[in-house]
């Protein structure tokens, strides 16, 4: 059930009416029932997978908390009789027990994700290398499995780290895993951020409803007016790559960057807006990423909840694990301090980007995409002293034109790496980017070439205006909530904006609300 389908809008309306009609203490139960109905709509048999993750994580986390409570009680009771060494040994033995539960649960759930998502990728590589004819398994992927698995594993690791105790109520935990607005494409929430707002009773508040609907409409506008329109041109450009080289690849970079931004941020706007209508506050996933001045900043501002997930649960644990510290010490002895201290950071970064690539999809395109990100990050890090010298020598830091240069450089660099998403394989992606420098066909931009991509002149006009509106809203958002600013305007101005937004969504939407064929790009991850 796509967010942009009539059936979803009907489902949402029924949920909304029931939510504020049932007794407040039952609201979270209604959300759970709704979330499971929504999930079952994608295929009733898929419920088994989300249930397995829910039950295994809930039970393991509870066992971990029990062991931690036992430990605290024992240490309190025997405070006087145990010496430091005995306490240390006891803590180590209890830690080992919690670790067993944590590892078993991770192995089960990540193993399940890996089998479903990567089996065919492994088979295709085996067939390619050894010229075998192994048949593909063609497993159907349960909706949102990458998102809900990561969210659940984050919870498990937090409980293991004793950040908070496990949730006792299995049904409440099931809602955390399956909450319908976010189960398809995130944001990947943290239990301690979401649980309070998810389970507490909510009264009907005009502000939540109004702000939530505004955010939903803004998301629909981005998705239907901009992303789905650009999708037509991007599909034309990448489906016959031999025909569209040189300047057309520049268009792919530009169009796909804007399409993905409008699609993913639009989807997240709809998600956060829906949650707000129910009084639930979800984490923000973007902070004007296209204003980033370097790649590290870009990744702090794009898909924030995924970035922080990888940082907290993969990058840090790998960087500081005992074998990494030993490797760092050894590297210092062999290569000297300067190189030795880089070893854990760069090795962990490489692992994170390899995993991030794999998380996005089972293909070499995504793995190479991840490793290119890693490469650019390492090069930027190594060139940092050189940049600092340059900035000091020419006093360019903070200058508007230099900021603009840095922003554009980051935008095009990230865009060039990102086109690995759209071309069918890695060599083709590299060939296409290379053709920008070898195919001199810039004149085709002005002799009707762009009119063959499936879009008309009014479409381009809508796209330019739509992109300018997105830019204006982004700029306005730098100094505070755009909806707060709008709320402060006189009633006629406010309603004119609402009216134009809704009308443009209905009239200018590439296919209009209810059109089912173009799913959100991140749904497939």
């Amino acid at each position, binding site marked *: 059930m796509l967010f942009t389908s009539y059936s979803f809008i009907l489902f949402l309306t029924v949920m909304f009416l029931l939510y504020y009609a049932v007794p407040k203490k039952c609201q979270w139960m209604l959300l759970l029932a709704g979330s499971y109905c929504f999930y079952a709509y994608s295929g009733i048999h898929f419920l088994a997978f989300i249930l397995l993750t829910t039950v295994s994580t809930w039970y393991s986390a509870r066992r971990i908390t029990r062991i931690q409570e036992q430990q605290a009680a024992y240490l309190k009771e025997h405070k006087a009789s145990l010496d430091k060494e005995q306490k*240390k040994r006891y803590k180590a033995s209890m830690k080992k027990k919690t670790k067993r539960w944590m590892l078993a649960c991770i192995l089960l759930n990540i193993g399940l994700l890996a089998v479903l998502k990567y089996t065919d990728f492994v088979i295709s590589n085996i067939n390619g290398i050894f010229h075998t004819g192994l048949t593909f398994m063609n497993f159907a992927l349960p909706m949102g499995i990458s998102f809900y698995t990561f969210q659940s594993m984050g919870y498990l690791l937090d409980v293991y*780290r*004793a*950040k908070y105790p496990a949730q006792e109520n299995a049904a409440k935990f099931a809602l955390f895993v399956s909450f319908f607005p976010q189960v398809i494409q995130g944001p990947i929430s943290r239990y301690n951020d979401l649980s309070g707002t998810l389970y507490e009773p909510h009264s009907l508040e005009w502000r939540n409803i109004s702000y939530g609907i505004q955010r939903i409409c803004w998301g629909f506008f981005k998705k239907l007016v901009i992303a789905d329109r650009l999708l037509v041109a991007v599909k034309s450009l990448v489906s016959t790559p031999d025909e569209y080289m040189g300047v057309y690849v520049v268009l792919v970079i530009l169009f796909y960057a804007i399409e993905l931004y409008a699609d993913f941020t639009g989807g997240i706007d709809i998600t956060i807006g829906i949650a707000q209508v129910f009084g639930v506050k979800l984490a923000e996933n973007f902070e004007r990423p296209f204003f980033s001045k370097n790649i*590290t900043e870009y990744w702090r501002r794009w898909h924030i909840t995924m970035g922080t997930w990888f*940082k*907290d649960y993969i*990058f*840090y*644990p790998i*960087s*500081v*694990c*005992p074998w990494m*510290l030993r490797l*760092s*010490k050894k590297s*210092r002895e062999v290569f000297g301090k300067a190189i030795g*201290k880089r070893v*854990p*950071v760069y090795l*962990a970064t490489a692992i994170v980007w390899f995993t991030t690539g794999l998380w996005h999809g089972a293909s070499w395109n995504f793995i190479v995409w991840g490793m290119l990100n890693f490469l650019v990050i390492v090069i930027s*890090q190594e060139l940092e002293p050189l940049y600092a010298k340059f900035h000091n020598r020419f006093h360019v830091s903070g200058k508007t034109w230099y900021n603009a240069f840095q922003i554009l450089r980051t935008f095009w660099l990230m865009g060039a790496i990102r086109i690995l998403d759209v071309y069918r394989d890695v060599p083709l992606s590299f060939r296409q980017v290379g053709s920008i420098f070898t195919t001199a066909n810039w004149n085709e931009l002005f002799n009707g070439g762009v009119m063959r991509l499936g879009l008309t002149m009014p479409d381009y006009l809508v796209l330019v205006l739509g992109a300018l509106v997105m830019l204006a809203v982004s700029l306005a958002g730098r100094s505070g909530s755009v909806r707060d600013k709008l709320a402060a305007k006189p009633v006629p101005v406010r309603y004119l904006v609402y009216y134009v937004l809704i009308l443009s969504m209905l009239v200018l939407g590439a296919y209009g609300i209810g059109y089912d064929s173009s799913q959100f790009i991140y749904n497939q991850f």
Partner: protein
Amino acid sequence: MEALLEILKGLHPEVDFETCDTLVDDKILDSFDIITIITEINTEYDVAVPAEEIIPENFNSAEALYDLVERLQDED
């Protein structure tokens, strides 16, 4: 504390680590810096900082970081 301040100044000579208490909040230290600090602490103090201790409160100031090192040494 002197050794810790030297580690920090080696990363960002321009920062006054004796007074600054928003090292993470103000994004002065990034994740690369934090890992470098942890490996240097491991070498200097023979203390392993576990991943669960990598939270802003422990890295926002030199003093907080030193308290963490002392606490971990004590637990050892």
